[in-house]
């Protein structure tokens, strides 16, 4: 993940947080979370919302994976890990999540 020259790649130790411009909001109409940012928004599936709620700058990616495993305990750990890291990398690429430390 992360081509050379890209800013701060997400790793297991980074503590991702939402970018300044992005904000989570529950949408009553569609009963799902939205990630809002200037002029646009993303509709989030429950897992994506769960991950982004934990992007506060306090939790490491590893800790976020642990948390998800509690909810999705039927899934193999590697699959969850891969999914979380890929999702966060994609969000960072779009400037919606910052890698933190």
């Amino acid at each position, binding site marked *: 993940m992360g081509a050379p*020259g*890209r800013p701060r790649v997400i790793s297991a130790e980074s503590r991702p947080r939402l*970018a*300044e*411009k992005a904000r989570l909001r529950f949408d009553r109409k569609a009963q799902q979370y939205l990630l*809002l*940012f200037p002029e646009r928004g993303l509709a989030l599936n429950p897992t994506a919302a769960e991950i982004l709620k934990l992007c506060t700058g306090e939790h490491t990616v590893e800790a976020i994976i642990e948390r998800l495993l509690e909810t999705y305990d039927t899934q193999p750990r590697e699959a969850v890990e891969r999914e979380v890291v890929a999702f966060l990398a994609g969000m960072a690429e779009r400037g919606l999540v910052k890698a933190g430390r």
Partner: protein
Amino acid sequence: MSSEVRPYTLVAELTYKCPLRCVYCSNPLDYGRHADEVDTGTWLRVFQEAEDLGVVQLNLTGGEPLIRHDLEALIEEAHRLDLYTNLITGGIPLTVERLTRFRALGLDNVQLSIQDVRAGASDRIAGLRSFDRKLEVARWAKNLGFPLTINVVLHRDNLDRVADVIALAEDLSADRLELANAQYVGWALQNRAALLPTREQLERARAIAAAARARLRGTMEILFVTPDYYSEFPKACMDGWGRRFVVVSPDGLVLPCHAAHTLPGLEFESVRQRALGDIWRDSPGFNAFRGEAWMPEPCRSCDRRAIDFGGCRCQAFHLTGKAAVTDPACRLSPDHGLIEAARAQALEAAGRAMPLEYRARTVSLRG
């Protein structure tokens, strides 16, 4: 009409007043006739009604929204309703104290317009000395922790400096840069001969923007909005009529786009008389171009009709005199010759200085 149709964004045009006089302003030419502004209480009610309807984004715009003394109260209520609130401003008149208050009240994003990278050219387009102050406002915003969008309207006179525009936005640590080519409705149409670039100019700028976008990915988002005049097909104006946006004009008219009230024969209603949701759902003006029933050929049988919705109704009207025809910007439109003629004119006039008509109240009351 599907019951799922809900607006996501409320565009609150708080006032048509503005200290600047941009030659491409998108406010209607007759803005001086809509001077009876909606009061604070009504706006607060409209925000609540919008949120009930499903709106999650709020654009506070104008004119110049800073002219409104009640902006603080409006931001506070928007924040209470958990709306993502974006202040779209030219940055004048503003103090750092007031911007600090906006931050504390929960404003989410500041979008600042800059007209050019050279003070003289910027001030010429805006019709007011304002460039240096704008840069100061941008720095205040960043220092206060606001995410910052810089918006630059592109035209013949500044397109060749897109690289400098990008450098300036980087220098200001902007989070997002909107390079928006002028759309030729409103005042920009009046000034089209002086503003429309050549295709070559546009392609060069587009390539520079694309390279910068790749280089700055994840740091600064760069948006390059092509002018319809050089696209094969029109844009989905407002994401389609009455689909995702609801605009309320300074005098309270509820509109599907900010220029819809310039279309003759359409009836639009005011938030002074009726609830926003009722107007959104069943006012005749809103339903006039919703969906596909209104479409003539070639749109009616075209595969792209669910992508661009036949383009911009205002552009269709202002170029052909008819609102319910295919946008002439589309190369399939029988009126496309109008666009080709304008392009030819731009090529022929390249490099020559042309007179500009400034946005002004006296002009707007004429005729």
